[in-house]
Every structure is written in C-alpha cells, then in structure tokens.
C-alpha cells in the first residue's frame, strides 16, 4: 500500500492555471427545465461564452415516421412540445388533410381552435410562471398551475389523456365533446380571467421582478429574424408575425384578435407578450363558444369515410364500414403523392410539417420545423457579457422545450 495520496479527479494543468470558471448548466440542472446542456465559461458572475450541446432525448421521429401509416404518426407529435401537445396533433391532422384535400365542417374547425388556444394558454402559463420561479417568486407558479390542471382535465374528458394527448383524428375528432367537457370548459372560462389577473398583479408591475427582467437576455428584431425566431419570442422583439394571421388555417380568419408585440426583445417583453397572448386566446375561445351555438352540435368529424374510422357498431353491421375500418387500420388508404409544407402557430412559434408523400402507406419524408430548435441557437449571443442569473431567466423566458429541441 502506498502512502501517497492520489486524487480521484485529475485536472489538466491549464485548467488549474486559468482565471475563469467552467460551469455546466445542464444536462440535468433545475435552470434548464429539460435535458440539454450549456457549458458556460464565467468570470465571476459574468458569462464570457456558452457552448450548447443537445440530443439527449433525440428519438428519431423523422425516421420512425417513414415507417408508420399516417394515423400512427400523430402520437409522435405529442412528444415534440409536450407542454402544448394538442397544437402539434392538430397541426399534423391539418397537414395530412391539406395533402388529401379534405375540408372540415366549421364546427370541427372551431372545436380545434378551442383546443389549440387552451393549449397555448397552458404552455404560456408554464413558461411565464417558470420565469417567475427563476427570478425567485415561487408563489405565482403554484397559483397558475391550478389553472393548468383545469386545462388538463378538459383534455382528459375529451380524449382520456392529459399530457401526451393524441387528441382528434385525421378527418375530425374521435368522439364528440361530452357534457362533462363543456361543463369543464365553462368553468374554466369563469375562473381563468380572475387567475390571470391575479398572476399579472403579482408580477407585471412588481419592482423586483421588473428590475430582474428588463434588459436581460435581449435581442434586436433584426438579429431575431436572422436567427429564425418566430412566435412570442419574435413578437417580443417587435415583429408582428403570427401564422394564424399571415396564413390562416382552421378558420382562424373568422376570429377577431390582436397580435401583441414588444419593443426590446428582453425577458420582460417576452413575459408581457405571453401574458397578452393569453388574453387574446381567452377572447378567441369566447368567440368560438359563441359561434358554436349556431351550429349543429352533433357534427364532430367530416364525412370522409375513406380516411376517418367508422363507428364501432357500424363496423359490426355494415359491409362498407368494415372495409374502411380494415383499410384505415392496415394503412391501405389512398394517399396522393405530393409535397406539402404546412405551418401552424405553435405556442413557441411557427411549427412546420414538411411532408413528402410518394403515394405509399407511410410518408416518404417528414420533417418537423421545430421553433425551439431554430431559435435556441441564438442563446449564446443573448447571454454573452451578461450575468449568470440573467442567463438563467433568459433560458426560461425563451421557453426551450427539450422534446421539441431534439425531436
């Protein structure tokens, strides 16, 4: 046995000599709220450089999608931005419907709009309350998570799932909204304004919160556009680009709403834009509920038997229903060849589906344009020469979702 003590960790000489500190922010760090890594070089509290590493939860969805019938790809989209899964699901349905040339009844469009706006509210609530947590205000987070829970209960009563919803189908919804779902939506419409008002009154003009957020992690409109920013992060920098307005889908053209914009593109502007967007989403849901009153409440899917699964009792009694059921389940439906790019306004920005079909049962190629993946590369530029604490809130205000980052 040797007396000499050998250290377990051996550092390179230049690592001991250098005057700066290397800090691993991630992959499993409370500040990242997801599995991705930032290696920061810091001098005291000042960030000198940042190197990002991702791919920790890469699941090869694009490859898997080339081997699945169209209906079975939808559960993959749940796992992109899992904070607002219904937007991904409905985006995928709309992409396939565009390829197939299907048009939906107005009622289906409005039901989808309600779900997408609920999902947007849930996503923004998570993002904004986590910004507050990272600035040290834990309480608002616990308040708004009760509201998010209500939204998850609405999903649950519509489709049975909460997080990875797989809600709706190509051609409409798998079943009509139940009485219970409508009751939950109505309750939500009553409690939500109060809760959001409370949340805003706790933070919007809070001196400590404002001092922490204003000027932190800012980006100019020009740089944001060059970096491919979309969604609330781009709008916070002052560019009023919103897919719902620029290329309306799912009857968004029937609704009256505003696009909130910021000026500085900093954490505070992103926070304020998301809050304002939640009010707009609330108003869209209200309008949709009013419009639904004039429509036949029994319609919840389009009349497209070749693409939409028939009801089970018909499968057992009707020949055509049995044939369609078999063809859809076995992935033998007729799909046109074509090349479609379909963007929807995800909670984080433009979520695009680039689908190439060669007429086969599975896509020839499917690419997801994930907003997080595109804008997260601007992060080092946003935090360099700032403080470490600013880097943490800049990250949470960008709302980087690991599932969407890695696909």
């Amino acid at each position, binding site marked *: 046995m040797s007396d000499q003590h050998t250290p377990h960790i051996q550092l390179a000489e230049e690592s001991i000599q250098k005057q700066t500190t290397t800090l691993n922010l991630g992959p499993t760090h409370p500040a990242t709220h997801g599995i991705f890594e930032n290696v920061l070089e810091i001098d005291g509290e000042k960030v000198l450089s940042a190197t990002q590493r991702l*791919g920790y939860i890469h699941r090869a969805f694009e490859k898997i999608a*080339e081997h699945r019938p169209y209906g079975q790809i939808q559960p993959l989209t749940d796992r992109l931005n899992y904070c607002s899964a219904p937007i991904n699901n409905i985006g995928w349905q709309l992409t396939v419907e565009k390829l197939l040339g299907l048009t939906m009844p107005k009622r289906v469009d409005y039901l989808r709009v309600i779900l997408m706006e609920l999902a947007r509210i849930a996503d923004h609530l998570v993002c904004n309350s986590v910004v507050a947590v990272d600035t040290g205000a834990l309480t608002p987070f616990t308040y708004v998570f009760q509201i998010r829970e209500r939204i998850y209960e609405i999903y649950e009563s519509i489709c049975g799932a909460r997080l990875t919803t797989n809600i709706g189908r190509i051609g409409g919804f798998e079943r009509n909204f139940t009485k219970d779902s409508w009751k939950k939506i109505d309750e939500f419409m009553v409690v939500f304004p109060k809760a959001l008002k409370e949340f805003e009154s706790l933070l919007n003009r809070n001196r400590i919160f404002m001092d922490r957020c204003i000027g932190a992690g800012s980006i100019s409109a020009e740089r944001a*556009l060059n970096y*491919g920013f979309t969604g609330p992060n781009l709008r916070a920098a002052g*560019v009023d680009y919103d897919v719902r307005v*620029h290329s309306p889908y799912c009857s968004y053209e029937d609704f009256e709403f505003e696009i909130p914009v910021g000026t500085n593109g900093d954490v505070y502007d992103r926070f304020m834009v998301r809050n304002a967007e939640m009010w707009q989403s609330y108003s869209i849901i209200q309008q949709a509920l009013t419009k639904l009153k004039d429509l036949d409440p029994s319609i919840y899917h389009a009349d497209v038997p070749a693409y939409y699964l028939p009801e089970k009792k018909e499968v057992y009694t009707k020949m055509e229903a049995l044939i369609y059921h078999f063809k859809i389940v076995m992935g033998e439906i007729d799909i046109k060849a074509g*090349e479609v*790019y*379909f963007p929807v306004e995800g909670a984080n920005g433009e979520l695009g589906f*680039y689908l190439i079909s060669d007429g086969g049962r599975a896509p020839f190629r499917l690419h997801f344009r994930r907003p997080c993946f595109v804008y997260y590369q601007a992060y080092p530029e946003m935090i360099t020469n700032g403080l470490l604490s600013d880097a943490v809130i800049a990250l949470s205000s960008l709302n980087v979702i690991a599932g969407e980052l890695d696909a």
Partner: protein
Amino acid sequence: MTNEYIQQILSDKFGTAVWGFEESFGIFSCNIKPEMNTAVLQFLNEEGSLGFRFLTDLTAVHYPDRKAEEICVVYHLHNLVANKRMRVRASVSIAQPDIVTMTNLYSSANWMERETYDFFGVNFIGHPNLIRILNADEMNYFPMRKEYPMEDPTRTDKDDEMFGR
C-alpha cells in the same frame, strides 16, 4: 409579387441554372444548381422586389433512385412583408454531397445545416462548426439515408412484410 414575376426575374438573372418552376399546395418552388445556391439565395434575399429574407427551414431529402443527384437540399424561404413563401431545391450526388453553407447569410442556418449533415451527411463547405448535433459523435453513418434500416437489421423475430412500409 406573382409566381410569374419571380420566375421571370430569376430566369433573366441565372438562365438555365434555375429551372422546374411550379406551385404545389400553395408554395412556389424551383430547382437550382447546387453550386449556385449562395448566388441565388443571396439574390432572393437582397433584390428589393423579392425580399425573401427569412429562412424558415433547411433540410434534405434522400431519393435513392435519382442517379448522381440523390440528396436534395431543400430551403424554405419566406418574405414576411409580402407574406410569400418559396421553396428552393438543390440536388447533390451522394458520392460527393458538397454544397456551400448559408451561415453567412442566415445565422439560423447554422444548426439546421448541422442537423442536415448529421442525418444525411451533406458537407456544407465553409460551415463554422460542422459536427453532429442530435446523434452521438462516434456514429459512423448518416441515419436518415434510405439505406439505413430503422431497426437492427440482424433481428429475425419481426416480419415487416405485412405491417412495414
């Protein structure tokens, strides 16, 4: 800005280096020679009457049947002011998949090109940091190319004849 106008101005400027103009599912698209990608995209960006200044998406598609142009690099551009989208394709051969990087024009191209390299092996000449982004560094193949099976090819317990693609 009409499709005819874009076609006209591109043909006047680049002649036969740009071809295959078509509109499908609402997006106007064209093919370009891969060595012209910087010139064409820069022109689309800087020409005042076109103004495609936003790079929405950059990816690739592998067509094993197209001889000498198996890998198709696809750019989705957007003119946010006129609200016009456009798709530009540049095909390279799988034996030598070289194309010049667009990172000088678009900062957003950095990771999108790394992803395209990672999955298709497209060599973006001049890219500042062309390394894998989502897959493991030690991987020695490009998984989105069609010849790579999704699952371990040595498996014998699964029969894909009925349920596979």
